[in-house]
C-alpha cells in the first residue's frame, strides 16, 4: 500500500516534537475527521532555522508531516511558502490516491505556521 520511503518516515519520522518559544504555529485538520497536524517554526533572518511537528493521523499523515518539515527546514520563508502537497507526495515516491488529502494537510499546516509568523511580525512593527 505504501512506498518504502513512506514507511521509513512513518517508522523514523524527522522533526517530531514542539518548540517551546515558536515564532509561528500552524494547525490543520480536525481530530473528528481523524487527522490533526501541528507545525512549530523558529525563524531567523527570514529563514526557517528549526521546525517541529506533532500529528494525530494515519501512516500517510505522519510520513507527510515528516517529509514536509524536512523539505522546508533551512529554507527561506518565501521558498517554504511554495511547498505543495504534490511535491511532498512526490518526495515520498507517491501516495495511494485515497491518501493524497493527507499531504494537503502537511503543506497547509506549514503555510499556516508561516502566516502566523508573518502576522506576529506585522503586529510587532510600529504603526
Amino acid at each position, binding site marked *: 500500500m505504501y512506498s518504502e520511503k513512506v514507511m521509513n518516515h512513518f517508522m523514523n519520522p524527522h522533526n*517530531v516534537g514542539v518548540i517551546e518559544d515558536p515564532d509561528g504555529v500552524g494547525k490543520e485538520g480536525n*481530530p473528528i475527521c*481523524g487527522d*490533526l497536524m*501541528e507545525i512549530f517554526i523558529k525563524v531567523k533572518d527570514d529563514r526557517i532555522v528549526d521546525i517541529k511537528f*506533532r500529528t*494525530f*493521523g*494515519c501512516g500517510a*499523515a505522519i510520513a507527510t508531516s515528516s517529509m514536509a518539515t524536512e523539505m522546508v527546514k533551512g529554507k527561506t520563508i518565501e521558498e517554504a511558502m511554495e511547498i505543495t502537497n504534490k511535491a511532498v507526495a512526490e518526495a515520498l515516491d507517491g501516495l495511494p490516491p485515497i491518501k493524497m488529502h493527507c499531504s494537503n494537510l502537511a503543506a497547509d499546516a506549514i503555510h499556516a505556521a508561516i502566516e502566523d509568523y508573518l502576522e506576529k511580525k506585522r503586529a510587532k512593527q510600529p504603526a
Partner: protein
Amino acid sequence: MAKRTVYMDHAATTPVDPRVVEAMLPYFTEGYGNASSVYRLGQEARKAIDEARADVAQTLNCTPREIIFTGCGSESDNLAIRGIAFWNRDKGNHIVTSSIEHHAVSHTCEQLEKHFGFQVTYLPVDKYGRVDPTDVEKAITEKTTLITIMYANNEVGTIEPIAEIGEIARAHKIPFHTDAVQAGGALDLDVEALKVDLLSLSAHKFYGPKGVGVLYLRRGVRLLPPQTGGAHELNRRAGTENVAGIVGLATALKLAQGHREENNRKLIALRDRLIEGVLSSMLDTQLTGHPKERLPNSASFTINYVEGEGLLLGLDMMGTAASSGSACTSASLEPSHVLLAMGIPPEVAHGSLRLTLGHENSDEDVDYLLEVLPGIVERLRSMSPLYTTAS
C-alpha cells in the same frame, strides 16, 4: 522477545482447515461434473451437494430444502433482504433494522430506500451495541414486511437478543432475518431456538473457503429471487453450483460446530487474558462492545490519542495482523458507523483496534501482543498533539 507472525484478524477471514481442503480437492479435477447433468459425473456432484445440504440443515435444525447455497455472506444478506422486500411489496414497504449492521445489510437497505421507495428504520443501540427488543416492537407498523438484525457484531463482538426479537417478529407475523456471518462457528445456530425465518452464513469466517455462503429460508416464507437464471436451489438462486465450495462449507461448519463448546472455552480464556492485559498495560484504553455478551474470540478496544491505521502499521511491522474502525482504514474515509452508533466520539473511534482470535492462536501469541502493543501506542502518543494537551 523474538519477532513472531501473529494473525489476530479472524473476523476478517480465517485460514482454511486442512481437512476442509482435503474434502474439497476431489471436486476440482475428478468430481468436476455439473450437478444438473444426467450422467454419472453430474449425479455424483449432485450427491455431494445433497449431503452437504443435509449436514448444514442438521446443524441449523431445519430441513435440507430450507438451505440455499450462495456465493458469500453478502449475497445471502442481499437475497434475504431484497427477496423478502420485493415479494411483499404490495403488502408494505417498511423495514426495521439496526444502526450497527454490516454494510451488506445497511447499504442494501439504503439502496431500497433511495431507489425503490422503501422506508427503513435504523434502530439505535446502547453503549455496548445492544439492540433493545422493545425498540423493535415500537418500530413495527402495518407496513413492516421485514425485520433484519445481526446475530453478533463484526466490529465489537456484541451478541444481540435474537430469540427475544424473533418472538416479537412472530407475534406480528413479520419475517425475521439475522445476519449470522460473524456467529458462524462460535454460536448456536438452531433456527428454532433463535426463532428466525432467514439466517445468513459465510464459510470463510469459520475456516472454510471464500466464495460460498448459506441462506436459511424457513419453509412457507416466500421471496423474490434477485439472481434469476436456471432453476438451481429450488428456483431461489440461479447459478451452477460451486460443488467444491459447498462441500468445503459443510465440512467446515460441521468441524466448527462439532467442537464448539471446547473451542469456545479455549478462545474465551485467551481473549479474557488479552483484554485484561491490554487494559492494565495502558491508560486511556477502553474495551468496546458488551463485556459478557460478546463473541468468544473478540477483543476490541479504543485507544485514546492515536489513530488506528498507525496502530495497524506498527503491529504489522512487528508481524501482527489486526484491524481498526478508523476513517483512514476504511475505503470510504468514514469512521466506523458501529462505534459512532454506540456513542463513541469520532476522535476516539479513530483510535479503535480490533483483535479477533482463532484456533491457531496460542498463549505465546497473546504474550507477544501484550509485549509489543504498549510500545507502539507510546510511540504514536509521543507524536500526537492530543496526548500532550490531555496529559
